């Protein structure tokens, strides 16, 4: 659905390239979690894949069309929720009547449903500019989901959301997802969203260190207390003894600990790469 082919990009010559010959393929029907350290280029990658930045070489294609051409058929089927944004001095109702026509698959029924999930239904006539950041985020995400675009990209969506809204956000994703849709969520808040992802993409130093489905991760790695004789890929100390990421024995299935997976991948990229590219 979204293909990034051999992209190179840097903000200035002195700092060098953030991405060199970077490729990534994202497919419909999946919810991807994009993980990377601060400065790894998550937001830059998002801007490159939505046509907001021009790569020095390479291209980002959506259904075969270069997103940088920003053709109406691309822009009407693609939605980005940035980490920070402001909303105009309009009510939700006015905003929808102005912006919904750009998205042919927009559904008012869905919009109402998503506002309801976020408990924002009573705010339909409220000036959005006067809302708190968390409320703005909820309203904008309700709109983003209601556009029913094939591609929906969210940069740190749970930042600024209060405790109940994090669960509401998960409900929004699991309700709004379909087989024809692709969602990508960039985040540091892995605990907020782990259960709703089916793929994890970890980037660092201009490379995709890992792009794997949760099913794949579960079958290849186990996250559990360290045992004698283990050859762990990563170990972290806890008050109850060391916890480890180890190669899963056949039939051993544990809950994916995204935080550990991320640390293991950054610390030991070659071993992780081996494990996930090797044929079983």
């Amino acid at each position, binding site marked *: 659905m979204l293909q990034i082919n051999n992209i190179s990009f840097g903000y200035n010559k002195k700092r060098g390239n953030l991405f060199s010959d970077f490729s990534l393929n994202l497919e419909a029907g*999946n*919810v991807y979690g994009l993980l990377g350290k601060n400065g790894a280029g998550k937001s830059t990658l998002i801007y490159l894949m939505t046509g907001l930045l021009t790569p020095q070489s390479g291209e980002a294609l959506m259904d075969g069309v270069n997103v940088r051409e920003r053709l109406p058929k691309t822009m009407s089927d693609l939605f980005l929720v940035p980490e920070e944004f402001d909303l105009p001095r309009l009510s939700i109702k006015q905003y929808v009547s102005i912006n919904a026509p750009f998205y042919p698959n927009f559904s008012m029924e869905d919009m109402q449903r998503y506002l309801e999930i976020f408990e924002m239904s009573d705010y339909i006539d409220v000036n959005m500019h006067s809302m708190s950041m968390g409320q703005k985020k909820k309203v904008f995400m309700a709109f983003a989901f209601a556009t029913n675009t094939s591609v929906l990209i969210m940069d740190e969506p749970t930042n600024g959301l209060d405790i109940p809204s994090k*669960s509401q956000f*998960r*409900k929004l994703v*699991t*309700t709004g*997802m*379909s087989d024809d849709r692709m969602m990508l969520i960039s985040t540091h808040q892995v605990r907020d969203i782990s*259960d*709703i*992802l*089916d793929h994890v993409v970890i980037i660092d130093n201009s490379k995709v260190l890992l792009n794997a*489905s*949760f*099913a794949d991760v*579960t079958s290849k790695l186990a996250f*559990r207390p360290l045992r004698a004789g283990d050859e762990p890929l990563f170990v972290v100390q806890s008050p109850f003894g060391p916890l480890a990421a180890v190669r899963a024995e056949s039939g051993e*299935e*544990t*809950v994916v*600990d995204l935080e550990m997976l991320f640390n293991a991948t950054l610390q030991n990229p070659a071993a992780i790469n081996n494990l996930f590219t090797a044929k079983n």
Partner: protein
Amino acid sequence: MNFKDNKAIYLQIADRIGDQILSGKLMPEGKVPSVRELAAEIEVNANTVARTYDHLQQNGIIFTKRGLGYFVSADAKDKIIASRRDLLMQGEMDYFLGQLKAVGITPAELQDLYNDYLNRANASS
């Protein structure tokens, strides 16, 4: 839905569906929620729920009717009870009995405790 750390999430969801079948909330031959419905309800990725349903189907606990979705097998209850019994006997029972021995609970005391428990359980159901 809150998950424990020690068991794959798709299996924890399978356990929960098993609980609902045992308690009668899901009836034999009755319809099971669709993958997307359940995913939205418990806020979990649809592929995880799809895996749960595959697992339950392989174990004969649910079955599909083409185009209509998933349904509870007629003998689902028996199968769940049998597999839980196996699981209990394989591991948890040993651990539990070990704990009883460690704190010095006698077989007679255990019998009383279990009888009390059954009385309370019957009274509340």
